[in-house]
């Protein structure tokens, strides 16, 4: 944590950039990091808690090894995005926003990735998959199940 905080000034505007960095390093925001961030920025812990729970990007619990994001944008919606998410939930046996018990997958949805032309779109660990159909879901997840 100290090493991370060294890169940031003590101005409050750094709070979101710091949280981004912490999440990149640890995969989530460990609750025990909050006092240190608060001390660095000289703002209260509760304020940081308020900020990090306001923004969807941050998670206070560890996330899965593989992050599966299903796009729920309008273009993906009319091309069957909700059915893709349904199938993902069924296959992984978790609801969107949750992590599987073995910690292998976190399933998330996003409002729009801006790749509307090639929808429905699914992103796994930053890799984009275009024109996904319900049929392709099983095969796609299988690729990551063994890892």
């Amino acid at each position, binding site marked *: 944590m100290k090493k991370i905080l060294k890169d940031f000034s003590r101005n409050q505007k750094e709070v979101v950039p710091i949280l981004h960095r912490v999440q990149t390093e640890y995969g989530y925001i460990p609750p025990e990091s909050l006092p240190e961030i608060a001390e660095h920025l000289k703002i209260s812990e509760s304020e940081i808690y308020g900020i990090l729970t306001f923004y969807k990007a941050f998670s206070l619990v560890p996330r899965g090894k593989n992050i599966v994001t299903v796009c729920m944008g309008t273009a993906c919606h009319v091309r069957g995005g909700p059915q893709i998410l349904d*199938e993902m939930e069924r296959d992984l046996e978790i609801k969107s926003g949750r992590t599987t018990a073995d910690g292998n997958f976190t399933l998330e949805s996003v409002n729009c990735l801006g790749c509307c032309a*090639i929808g429905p779109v699914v992103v796994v660990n930053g890799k984009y998959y275009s024109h996904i159909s319900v049929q392709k879901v099983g095969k796609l997840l299988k690729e990551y199940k063994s890892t």
Partner: protein
Amino acid sequence: MKRITHPEQLITWKNRLLERHAPGKKTVVISSGTCGQASGSLQIIEAFKKELEKRNLKDEINLKMTGCHGFCEMEPNVLILPNGVFYKNLKTEDVPQIIEETLLNGKVISSLCYASPKSDEIISDCEAIPFYQKQKRLLTADNVRLDPTSIDDYIICNGYQALAKVFFNMTGEEVVEEIKKSGLRGRGGGGFLTGLKWELCRKEDGEPKYIICNADEGDPGAYMDRSLLEGNPHSVLEGMIIGAYAIGAAEGYIYVRMEYPLAVKHVTRALAEARTYGFLGKAILGSEFEFDIHIVQGAGAFVSGEETSLMASIEGRRAFPRQRPPFPAQSGLWGKPTNINNVETWANVPLIINKGADWYAGIGTKKSKGTKIFSLVGKINNTGLVEVPMGITLREIIYDIGGGIKDGKKFKAVQTGGPSGGCIPADQIDLPIDYDSLTKAGSIMGSGGMIVMDEDTCMVDIARYFLEFTQEESCGKCVPCRVGTRQMVDILTRICRGEGKEDDIGKLEELARTVKAASLCGLGQTAPNPVLTTIRYFRDEYEVHIKEKSCPALACKDLIVYDIDPKKCVGCLLCKKSCPAEAISGERKKVHIIDQEKCTKCGTCLDVCPPKIRAVSKYTGKKMDKILKKRQAKRDNP
């Protein structure tokens, strides 16, 4: 390269680059924005690299990786220069053939060319493709010419010339006047006159002043800002520096949504290059003007696209909107005068300065000037980003550029303006597209999303989709927005489930009025628009959902069943094998049956049933009840 400290140096440098440039050289231009990369453009580039190396052609043939060319449906695609041949939907296996036949022997490979969906005519010349022909590509023109990670490419395309012109030939006031004269209006949603906005901020006394580029493109279905930042980031930076000079700002911020990693990467690089060349920082171009730009990443909150929320977010607070006035021009970032424009607006600025306000004002309609980039998506043949002059009709966009509706289906409506906009029905297809006509039709221009819907799209479901979106994204500050949208979602969900009540439409209208009138920011004030326009144009669909418990578009999951016609089914096992829920039973050459209790209604069986057979269909309303009863009877007396 050293800092450029004088306008003449910029010209000398450009000329030197042009000498090295060799315009006639054979070049493979690869469209590689996020869409392109998602479709495999990076693999195509690798294949070209390997093959050129293998054949020892590295010095003779250039490879150029650019941003998005707009024709996303055809990704991955390449443009072969100098002859302008366009190859689409490529696979890595196609690469050796392209090098052998087209690059070395000048032959066109017709199987890789675009074919008109109407006439099957093969069109090899990129500019002759109808998708491009009817567009007026001004902002997006250079996307095919430049490598977005190279400032030199931008300079070759006359980059930073507008900046030099402004710094040494115009006062700040004159720049504001020029932008005012051009008639440019904000491309982010509101459509406020950009020049006027600049003037208000310029006249304020507070110091320092800030400018912001709003790149928190949150409207689902709109991605032109992403494409501009990815494909031509310097055009946005140049616009911002000119704006800072005109307004007298010392610092600028680009607020980009975190969902756009490639845009962040390209902008970050562009900023570093612009600093090295002396277009940012102290003594820009040798003048006394000092200005720098910082990049801030969002954190996944739609409301932060609203200007006051965005500023709160930059300051390191929760993205809550606040009351206006005071407007950002009076009291913005850290209480100082601030000017916010969106990406596309900023990108228009260098163009206006270079070619003049009169030229710009000659494009478009009386009150809407210039071009607008739309993202044409949904149930349309040619999905992609299209740049068109304001005033073009919906028909020209959908049929001439977009190539009509997918799979020969019927055009039903187009949704513009994202969650703040509305649905325009098919009978208004000759509507000219500009700020005022869209508002009159009950929708808005918004940031330019254009989602095409066909007969299979349910308008009640679309209204529910958008309300669910705004309800989830409501920051919770105002009760009417927080609670009102929740009530509206509940009613709409009920209607989509077939549990609608007689007075639901009236209730929705009443709630919509309250939410619109009593919310603080744009999110709440416009959130009911998708509901209001769908009620206005598709009231009958609501009524059928409520009274007959059926969904005419066969889209609402709870109001449909899938069933296999025993007379048509040949027992090929295709649907049985592909059903993810294992809800289909049957043997080879025997009729298959769907277990309605297991069926998740994903539609896979309908998709895989061969078109010659078409045994699977969707049913709603009375027919659906009949099927369910029949199945029930069979279960009771097997």
